[in-house]
């Protein structure tokens, strides 16, 4: 019940090719200037609201990308943080960005400096506002908890990948009375964010948020492609369900659709058809 090669069931190669095609075509469309639609995520309003309140209070804003390794998730989290920084730069609200990964730290410094430049306030950028605390999970968590308490932050934004430490951030933020918005692709941590934060952006909504904010054609195109892939999955399921219900789950078509080694039964049918025909 596992795949070592695509040859274990060629359906895998077919569906991967179709998804890749859907994603790449839509990226190409978006790059060519097609206006791709992405619906507005309700969490976005919550972000703006939290920014507004923290500027009123004048207390710092923290942004935490969690334990995210350097990669797509980190870059998209930084896209959102850049947006937030640009908003608060207008009112000179202080900010802290706390990272647990050396590479993310290096990239975050560039991104935040860019954000201040784009907002027209390069004077406000202080390299010390972006910090690398520790790459050890709980050491990082206790560092963040300490900082949240000492500086009594007004708003805390958590975007990226999170693990068990999520609740430490969220509860500490709650103790100091911060508005908290979290967005994570780590589903295990979503229940705690839902319980302890003011608004939670769940799973794929995270990608949609950064795509919506950045209007980056690669992200938009990819999201549209992913929707097509989901449709493809549902269609496959419907075809399979009808076959199963009518013909039983040992039917060759059912095995063909994704069961490792399921292609063999199909070859038999094909050879039967060929030999029967000739």
């Amino acid at each position, binding site marked *: 019940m596992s795949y070592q090669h695509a040859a274990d069931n060629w359906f895998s190669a077919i569906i991967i090719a179709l998804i890749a095609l859907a994603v790449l075509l839509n990226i190409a469309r978006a790059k060519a200037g097609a206006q791709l639609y992405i619906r507005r995520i309700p969490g976005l309003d919550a972000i703006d609201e939290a920014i507004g309140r923290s500027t009123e209070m004048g207390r710092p804003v923290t942004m935490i990308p969690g334990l995210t390794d350097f990669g797509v998730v980190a870059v998209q989290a930084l896209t959102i943080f850049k947006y937030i920084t640009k908003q608060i730069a207008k009112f000179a609200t202080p900010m802290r960005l706390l990272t647990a990964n050396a590479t993310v730290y290096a990239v975050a410094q560039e991104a935040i400096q860019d954000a201040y430049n784009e907002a027209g306030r390069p004077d406000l950028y202080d390299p010390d506002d972006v910090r690398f605390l520790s790459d050890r999970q709980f050491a990082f968590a206790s560092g963040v908890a300490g900082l949240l308490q000492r500086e009594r932050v007004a708003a805390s934004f958590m975007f990226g990948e999170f693990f068990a430490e999520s609740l430490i951030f969220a509860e500490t933020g709650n103790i100091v009375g911060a508005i908290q918005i979290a967005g994570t692709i780590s589903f295990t941590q979503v229940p705690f964010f839902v319980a302890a934060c003011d608004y939670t952006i769940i799973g794929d909504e995270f990608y949609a948020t950064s795509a919506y904010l950045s209007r980056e054609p690669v992200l938009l195109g990819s999201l549209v492609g992913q929707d097509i892939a989901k449709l493809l999955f549902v269609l496959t399921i419907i075809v399979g369900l009808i076959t199963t219900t009518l013909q039983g789950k040992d039917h060759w078509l059912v*095995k063909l659709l994704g069961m*490792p080694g399921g292609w063999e039964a199909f070859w038999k049918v094909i050879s039967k058809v060929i030999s029967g025909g000739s």
Partner: protein
Amino acid sequence: MEWWQNFLPLSYERIGVWASVICTVAIYSILYRENPFYRLFEHLFIGLGAGYSLGPVLTDALYRYWYAPLWQDGYWLWAPVVPFGLYLYFIYSERYGWVSRLVIGLLIGANAGLFFQEFASRQLPQLNSTLSKPLWITSANFDLTNGQVLQWLPTVINNWIFIIFLVAVMTYFTFSFEHRGPVKRVATAGRWFLMIGLGAMFGNTVMARMALLIGRIHYLLSDWLGIPIGGG
């Protein structure tokens, strides 16, 4: 021997137990408020953790995969790997920082290339398991020789629930069109179903966290204070 001789840190074993207890108390002190005692042990913890990882990383990984093949077996082609990996450590240099991206690019590329197998192996058997759920009591799937139609009804109902939940939650996670009319209703239902999954996770997690806390308290009671626990 008096009880206090067994209790106080007078032997190597008891010194160890007392050290553990001090560490435990120091960390729990943050529950009251942030304090210097806690901060001291926090830094001790970070230092110990970082220091510990040197052993496994150097010996189990670099010694096994690089030093031994080179200096013991003489496969000289392994020689460039570590010099190339050293590019990573330029990451803090403003001028040469970009060369670290070469190594990171290698890791990212390899993971991306590997993902095709993971996608096939992880998602497709699940897809197959989903679409082989019969939605009606037909003789193709069920043994109806004794006319036991009712017997299979719960299975079929559960299959319907499975499919409805699956499709509703998948609908909720679509973004390229506006959720309106019936789609909006399905998506809203999907969000509610999602809450069931999250609630189940929450319930399970409570158990996980309690088990860990109980483990610590058990240590304090049995190892430190010497109260026998167990057997129930």
